[in-house]
């Protein structure tokens, strides 16, 4: 799974699940640019978990403020050995 494919999925989920139709770039701020509050952010995370069949658990201090950081979280979690969730 490439970063570009993950980004495309994020764009699709933002559009279809959260009604966000604006531009989405790696540097886009989740709150300021995309208007994601805590409920919407969790919706995105759960949809990504379902889409990629991976549990997304940020490590202590791992930032989650931009789209690029969400992509990095998905990549990191996909790359670790999978236990059954």
């Amino acid at each position, binding site marked *: 799974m490439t970063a570009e494919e993950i980004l495309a999925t994020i764009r699709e989920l933002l559009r279809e699940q959260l009604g966000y139709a604006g531009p989405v770039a790696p540097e886009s701020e989740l709150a300021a640019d995309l208007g994601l*509050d*805590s*409920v*919407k*952010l*969790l*919706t995105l995370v*759960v949809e990504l*978990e*379902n889409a990629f*069949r*991976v*549990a*997304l658990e940020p490590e202590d201090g791992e930032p989650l403020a931009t789209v690029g950081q969400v992509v990095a979280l998905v990549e990191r979690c996909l790359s670790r050995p999978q236990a059954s*969730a």
Partner: protein
Amino acid sequence: MRIAAVGRALPKHYYDQDALLAALRREWEGRFFNPARLEQLHRNVLVGGRHLALPIERYPELRSFGEANDAWIECALELGERAVRDALGRAGVAPGDVRHLTFVTVTGLATPSIDARLVNRLGLRSDVKRTPIFGLGCVAGAAGIARVSDALRGFPDEVAVLLSVELCSLTLQRGDLSIPNLIASGLFGDGAAAVVLTGAARSEPGPRVVATRSVFYPGTEHVMGWEIGSDGFRVVLSGEVPNVARGIRKDVDEFLAAEGLTLADVGVYVCHPGGPKVLEAFEECLELPAGALDLTWKSLREVGNLSSASVLLVLGDTLEQCRPAPGTYGLLLAMGPGFCSELVLLRW
């Protein structure tokens, strides 16, 4: 106007949060890749258990909005009658003395309304003035006290009853896996509360309703509510709620200032236990002393958020357990869909 008594009625079916979570996990098994999310959301709301209108095994039998609403009517009548009888008994008021009956809910529909059916069951007078109110949501307990107090201002020798029945479990959309619905499935419970209010010319003791205020926040319709469809009520809940709650400080300051008071003059707080983030927002923005919301937190922990009934349960606990000294001011407050808040100034 005085608060003469608060009556309560909770369904006999009580389940701790683990039992409720286990049932929902079975229902939703395989629908999430990471089922730990449900558990995480249920733990975050800090609810220990909830009363349910029906035994838990009966919910899968409810196949439509109509079936759920039929169960709602049956349970609402039983709990409503119990809550009103409890309140009248505590106030020492006979059913025949009740001149106004206001009924609030946001979890079910009935015509004739629940208040009408209770006139028959309770033997209320045939000229009782009834006001059923649907749709105020969580704010309706506080708003109900305010509206009933307004009515009694015109009839100072009369008695009024405010009844709230909320059976949130019967609104749960089992096919809705949205985050707001998952949060709601962990937070909301069932129950009823009734308040006996008396006009200023009557002698029943109790804290006086000194003043009330409604505050509407323009442009916030999306923050909370229902989307109503063929399956019933689907919850709308935004992550903006705690932020909106934080804005209540200005409204409280203005409300108290109109009475020549400040927050320092308030000794008792009765808040709607909307959820942990809302209560933390209240504590922070109102700079409340430690323990000020103990009864509110306790109610959230023990029975969950009962929508409009919750603030009335906390009021009942406050009357019984706090017993504030005469002259003490109390602030009762709740927020709800609109978005809006209702503030009630009490004085013991």
